[in-house]
């Protein structure tokens, strides 16, 4: 039997501070996004959707990379908390992917004239969303913990391949979506400095929100493990 004591104690200690930091960062990022950052020369004010669209997409990447790392951790060590982190991060990653798609769609209408178009970045992101919904559904197919966690871990390792595919799809194929402006292979960010600062603050705020949600969701999952274990034992 493996222990779950260490991560739970850590999670409980850190969580309130994460919550306070997340609320503060979200307030600052909203002020900077809507009031402080200058309007774009081409798009005017509607580009401000970028400050919720891009962080949502990046946090979806991060969440699925965490699923990958936790899946490797489970297969390597068989410690149950790795599986709790994997399922928690996958659930939050699906949420952030959905938010990136919705905010992107709302941004696409005034800039491209359509809510949706079948171009590489949108299609690969939609595929990523469907694949991780499938990952969450797969977890319900077995009641045996070890079998379920191991199957999910294999899938969590395989599915991460789509993360670089989504990010690089705009470079590999002809795309309507704009090219990367910050995470570029050649040169630094191609954004105005105040816009870049606002974007980085927004990413920091979303990262803190992700960390808080992850801590809360992992806590729920660990309690569920303990409850199921207690029922089985007697």
């Amino acid at each position, binding site marked *: 039997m493996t222990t779950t004591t260490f991560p739970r104690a850590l999670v409980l200690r850190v969580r309130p501070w994460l919550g306070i930091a997340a609320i503060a960062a979200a307030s600052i990022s*909203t002020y900077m996004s809507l009031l402080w950052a200058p309007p774009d020369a081409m798009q005017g004010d*509607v580009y401000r959707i970028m400050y919720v669209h891009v962080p949502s997409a990046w946090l979806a990447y991060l969440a699925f990379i965490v699923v990958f790392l936790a899946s490797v951790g489970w297969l390597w060590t068989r410690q149950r908390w790795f599986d709790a982190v994997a399922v928690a991060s996958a659930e939050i990653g699906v949420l952030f992917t959905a938010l990136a798609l919705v905010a992107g769609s*709302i941004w696409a209408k005034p800039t491209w004239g359509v809510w949706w178009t079948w171009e590489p970045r949108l299609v690969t992101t939609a595929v990523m969303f469907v694949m991780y919904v499938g990952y969450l559904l797969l977890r319900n197919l077995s009641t045996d913990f070890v079998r379920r966690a191991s199957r999910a871990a294999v899938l969590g390792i395989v599915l991460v391949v789509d993360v670089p595919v989504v990010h690089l799809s705009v470079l590999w194929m002809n795309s309507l979506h704009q090219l990367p402006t910050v995470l570029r292979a050649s040169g630094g960010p191609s954004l105005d400095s105040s816009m870049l600062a606002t974007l980085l603050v927004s990413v920091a705020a979303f990262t803190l929100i992700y960390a808080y949600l992850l801590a809360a969701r992992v806590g*729920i999952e660990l309690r569920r493990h303990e409850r199921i274990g207690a029922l089985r034992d007697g």
Partner: protein
Amino acid sequence: MDEVFIAAAYIAVWGALVAYLVSLWQRTRRPS
């Protein structure tokens, strides 16, 4: 017209995050 799209995007994103947070609190209090 831009304001409508900006408001829609921000309400969708922040609204969904708050809704998920509330769902986590409910699951913490009443585990399924």
